[in-house]
């Protein structure tokens, strides 16, 4: 059995794993642009959070543009906001056919590998989880998100070819992340949550499973994140075979826990903005406690934010979250 999964299932406490790097970037006085472009700085942010917060694992930046940039998409890197992809790289069968699967030397990929390598080498007392985008969400970034939604029906062959190319790249990237020494990867597939369960199975699960099959083993976990899912995609998420599933704030966690097998670790789902960023210490405590009480008794539950914590979350709120979990465990 996978080490991390075993640790969760056997443990007697509820563990906490907020997905965060921005609070670390801010604490070390760097900009988002510096952290997403320089592996050393990203590593320092991860190390800061490791040193200052008691979480069950560390995470790297959930930057959903690195992979699209490697494929050749134009990326906008604002000083202190999350990067974004501009424009559309492929638009029809022809351009999809001509799309070249990039090497891991392209764009900021080497910097991300460096950050993961440094974090894995220096953080040895708990797991470090890498991050990458999921195949459907990556394809959507290259093809245009609204267009891929209809593309799966009117140009299914082109979209499947595009998905295969995205998956080929992601498998190589995840293998490299694994080789960097981390203990798992959080695969972020938010756009698949807009599909029906059946389409999620065909256009996301089928490809995510290839990543799982290629890298998941006793020492490396795949955590599949889908914050778009409002319930209809849960079975499709389970079917990927990922050891752990991470849910957004749009879903009812109790329902999810009932639906997921007890040997799959289930993570979620406090609102990263409404609770962490805009809440007060008191409201964070209240929301955290409520979720802990609702999910009590499920040994496969790990409490987390519903998505990556955005820039400018007050440190006091992260502390309030972690303290509430600690108190609950006593």
């Amino acid at each position, binding site marked *: 059995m996978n080490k991390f999964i075993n640790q969760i299932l056997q443990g007697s406490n509820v563990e906490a794993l907020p997905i965060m790097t921005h609070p670390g970037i801010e604490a070390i006085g760097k900009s988002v642009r510096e952290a997403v472009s320089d592996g050393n700085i990203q590593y320092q942010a991860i190390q800061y959070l490791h040193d200052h917060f008691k979480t069950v694992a560390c995470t790297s930046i959930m930057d959903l543009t690195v992979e699209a940039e490697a494929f050749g998409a134009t990326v906008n890197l604002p000083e202190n906001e999350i990067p974004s992809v501009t424009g559309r790289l492929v638009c029809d069968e022809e351009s999809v056919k001509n799309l070249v699967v990039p090497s891991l030397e392209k764009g900021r990929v080497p910097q991300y590998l460096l950050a993961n390598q440094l974090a894995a080498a220096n953080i040895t007392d708990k797991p470090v989880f890498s991050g990458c985008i999921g195949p459907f969400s990556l394809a959507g970034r290259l093809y245009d998100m*609204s267009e891929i939604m209809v593309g799966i*029906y009117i140009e299914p062959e082109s979209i499947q070819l595009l998905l295969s190319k995205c998956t080929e790249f992601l498998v190589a990237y995840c293998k490299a992340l694994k080789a960097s020494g981390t203990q798992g990867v959080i695969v972020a597939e938010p756009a698949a949550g807009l*599909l029906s369960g059946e389409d999620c199975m065909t256009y996301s699960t089928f490809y995510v499973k290839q990543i799982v099959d290629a890298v998941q083993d006793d020492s490396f976990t795949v955590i599949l994140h889908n914050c778009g899912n409002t319930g209809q995609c849960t079975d499709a998420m389970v079917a990927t075979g990922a050891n752990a599933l991470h849910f957004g704030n749009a879903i009812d966690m109790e329902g999810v826990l009932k639906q997921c097998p007890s040997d799959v670790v289930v993570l979620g789902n406090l609102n990263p*903005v409404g609770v962490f*960023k805009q809440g007060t210490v008191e409201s964070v405590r209240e929301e955290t406690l409520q979720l802990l009480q609702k999910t009590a008794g499920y040994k496969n539950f790990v409490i987390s934010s519903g998505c990556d914590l955005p820039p400018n979350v007050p440190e006091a709120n992260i502390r309030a979250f972690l303290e509430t979990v600690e108190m609950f465990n006593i």
Partner: protein
Amino acid sequence: MNQNFLEKLSECVEFGKINLASPYPPQMKGFPGADEITKEALEAGVTPTEILNEALITAMNKVGQKFSENKIFVPQMLLSAKAMGASMIHLKPFFANGTVQRKGTFILGTVYGDLHDIGKNLFGMMVEGAGWEVIDLGIDVKIEKFLEAIEQNPTAVVGISALLTTTMVNMKPVIDAIKSVSPDTKVIVGGAPLSVEFAQSIGADGYGKNPQEGIMWLDKIVA
């Protein structure tokens, strides 16, 4: 005969059959779609107004209903909107020459700082289907761009979309700027994190939780 055309067209829009070439939905593969049927219908003497009111709008109402009940998802809804768009192309000349009156002009954009556009696109297509001319300004739309569009279309109604709690606060400066240069321009806002209370607090005239609510509001202000 006319009824037959309207029923067939309505079905195409409801189930997202765009044209003959589109393989979707599988059970209609190889059959003409909204594109061809509209053309035929017009040639056979069905009026553009009938097409709009008795096929397109009724079909999109059904689609909107199914979406809000989680019976269909974003792709199916976008396909219906595309099918409707394929039909609308044939109606455009009648709008242009005044045979069919548009209900008005609707300027739509995602507020600056925000790049989410699936919901905005959906709403825009539905509004077009409801008989409005839609000017889509895209995503990350700055104040000046809204003002420019209003200057060119002084009677237009404006719609603003936001999906992030961090960008929904950018809507107020947009509304303030619009109201200061054009106090009579009506503004409707929407997007997942918004609420009626929030919309009121930033001075929006309307709020739509979903496309149907938005369209109902739009129809009311021109009634």
